[in-house]
């Protein structure tokens, strides 16, 4: 791996939660120690269910939340030490695009002003230059350059998300935090926005941190993927490793859920729901829902270990659990009663079953 652009080490976020007025504060470990690196110009995908801590990580990366422990380094520089001018510069380099383009754009501002605002706040350009820049940005995201006079309510969801992206691109960031950028959009529009983000990444050499609950979206966009569960990584690896040769039962469950929808199928349906981070289960956080769990999983917490170069998993039995892919598994919801298995995957590559060392 070349010089990593973003390096996160041992990041933790603990909130004190107080029940009632005089209740004792109890710690809630929203993020219980995560480490990852992101190579410049690539996409790192964070995937997990609601409550897994995806957005908390994003907030800490943007310095909207102070980490309780751990460090974040951008180009070798620790964010915790940034002050004054350096901090301003950091905020320019790292820009967010949020989920809901209906609430993330001020309804009383015109599109042009919305896109112009970060440039104005940071005193980046003179008035005339800023107008020119706004037109450039609108064109860059595929909107008419003269649309700056319009208000957000005049635009569709997809167009609004384009405005959000244009606003984020204004200060020429190096990195964008994409927090569920397409989940509020219609299916036919999602593909447009994902393609736009991919094009922009190529044109502008951007680094993306992509947060989504949708593994298929993350796999489409990312070079590497980290699978979060209860504030910890269950598995990290290259997209191919995660999707084709997952070594963690939770990732496998996610794949199964996605695959059974696409007409492929899955091995086992996981039971239950994500536990409250107030009361994480002892041992492995996933053990109450895991089809492979044994006594050891209930008492001893598995460490995140490197099972192949660049492929990490936090499971005692990473080497021995069966592989799950679209092609090998049985249905999650019994579709045998039907006449024919609906199936829309066009091309399915044969999956090389890799021997794990």
């Amino acid at each position, binding site marked *: 791996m070349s010089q990593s652009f973003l390096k996160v080490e041992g990041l933790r976020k603990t909130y004190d939660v107080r029940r009632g007025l005089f209740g004792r504060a109890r710690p809630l470990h929203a993020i219980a120690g995560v480490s990852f690196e992101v190579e410049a110009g690539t996409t790192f995908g964070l995937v997990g*269910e609601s409550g897994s801590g995806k957005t908390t990580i994003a907030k800490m990366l943007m310095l909207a939340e102070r980490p309780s422990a751990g460090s974040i380094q951008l180009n070798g520089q620790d964010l915790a030490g940034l002050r004054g001018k350096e901090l301003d510069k950091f905020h320019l380099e790292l820009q967010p695009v949020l989920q809901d383009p209906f609430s993330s754009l001020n309804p009383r501002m015109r599109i042009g002003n919305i896109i112009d605002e970060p440039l104005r706040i940071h005193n980046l350009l003179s008035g005339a230059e800023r107008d020119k820049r706004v037109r450039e940005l609108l064109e860059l995201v595929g909107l008419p350059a003269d649309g700056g006079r319009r208000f957000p309510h005049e635009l569709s969801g997809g167009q609004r998300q384009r405005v959000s992206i244009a606003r984020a691109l204004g200060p020429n960031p190096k990195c964008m935090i994409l927090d569920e950028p397409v989940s509020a959009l219609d*299916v*036919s529009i999602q*593909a447009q926005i994902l393609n736009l983000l991919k094009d922009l990444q190529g044109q502008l050499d951007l680094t993306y941190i992509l947060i989504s609950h949708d593994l*298929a979206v993350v796999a*489409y966009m990312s070079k590497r993927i980290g699978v979060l569960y209860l504030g910890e990584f269950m598995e990290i690896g290259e997209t191919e490793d995660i999707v084709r040769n997952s070594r963690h039962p939770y990732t496998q469950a996610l794949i199964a859920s996605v695959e*059974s929808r696409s*007409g*492929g199928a899955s091995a086992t349906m996981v039971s239950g729901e994500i536990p409250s981070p107030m009361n994480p289960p002892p041992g492995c956080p996933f053990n109450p829902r895991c089809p492979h769990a044994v006594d050891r999983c209930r008492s001893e917490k598995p460490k995140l270990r490197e099972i192949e170069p660049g492929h990490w998993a936090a499971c005692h039995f990473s080497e021995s659990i069966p592989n799950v892919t679209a092609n090998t598994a049985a249905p999650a919801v019994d579709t045998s009663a039907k006449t024919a298995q609906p199936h829309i995957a066009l091309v*399915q590559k044969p999956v090389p079953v890799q021997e794990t060392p």
Partner: protein
Amino acid sequence: MTVILEAKNLTTMLRNRAGIVTAVDNVSLKVRAGRSLALVGESGSGKSMTCLSMLGLLPSSGRLMGGEVLFKGRDLAKMSPAEMQKVRGKEIGMILQDAMTSLNPLLTIGDQVSEIFRVHQGITNKAEQRRRSIEVLEKVKIPAAEERLDSYPFQFSGGMRQRVSIAINVAMSPDLLLCDEATTALDVTVQQQLLKLLRDLQQQNNMAIVFVTHDLHLAAQFCDDVAIMYGGRIVETGPISEVFAQPTHPYTIGLLNAVPSLARYSDRLSAIPGQQPTLARLPQGCRFEPRCEHAVEQCRSHYPDWFEWGDTGRRTACWRTADSLNGTLAGIPVRVDKPVSEVA
């Protein structure tokens, strides 16, 4: 198999800022006992309005302008609100997207589940209400049902709340269940659990289900038939396995290709250009024409007639269906998909 619900030529108008628009335009559909029909479309395509029209639950700005809703031989469209009240909740259940908003936050789960027994069966005995509520909560696999009766909705997770909502709606063993984006707000693993639950309940009661969703793949997994809506009209319908194996309407094809899949790696998704027209400004001809790469002159001037073929009930509202079927529609790959087992 008995037809439970047949809607014929439903037309619903809505008054909004832009004036009066046709939200549901000449929609016909049919659901049989024990079968599920997926109503698939993007937001604003009219799928929810179709459901609300059938149940007589339109907002005050909307009105059913024409059509019949034959439910077990009776026309719901002609029923008085009082008569409809007796049908809804008893013979027809409806599950909405977010149980947090469909359940009353101030009442316990027990209060809300027992209401259905009080209203539809006249059971006033508290102990009896409680016993039946526990029974129906156990039916939807809520653990420790008896203790959870005294909990409030906010104490439940999203998945559990949706189970409560299912419990209330299947308590009277309805013949028809309408699910409007019932699993959309949930995590994928929980979504799968609820689909399994719905399928089990469907088989127990031989219930007909109308499954409204924007997620084609979820529909394919769960349903028998599909009706794809665009701009207030159904554009393609038929058995879901057939529609997926050989989609014919360019919109259906576009939707199928626009979704990223784990099994099918691609560098680029083929997005459908443009966006859905607003109902106030519909194109003169086919509603999909401005976004369609196969449109010809006829598509611009005339809304397509139904093209019907085969004996499985397939039909498509596209002038170029014949071209699509014989593979001469330029640019559209005609797909003959093999079952999963053969590919592997």
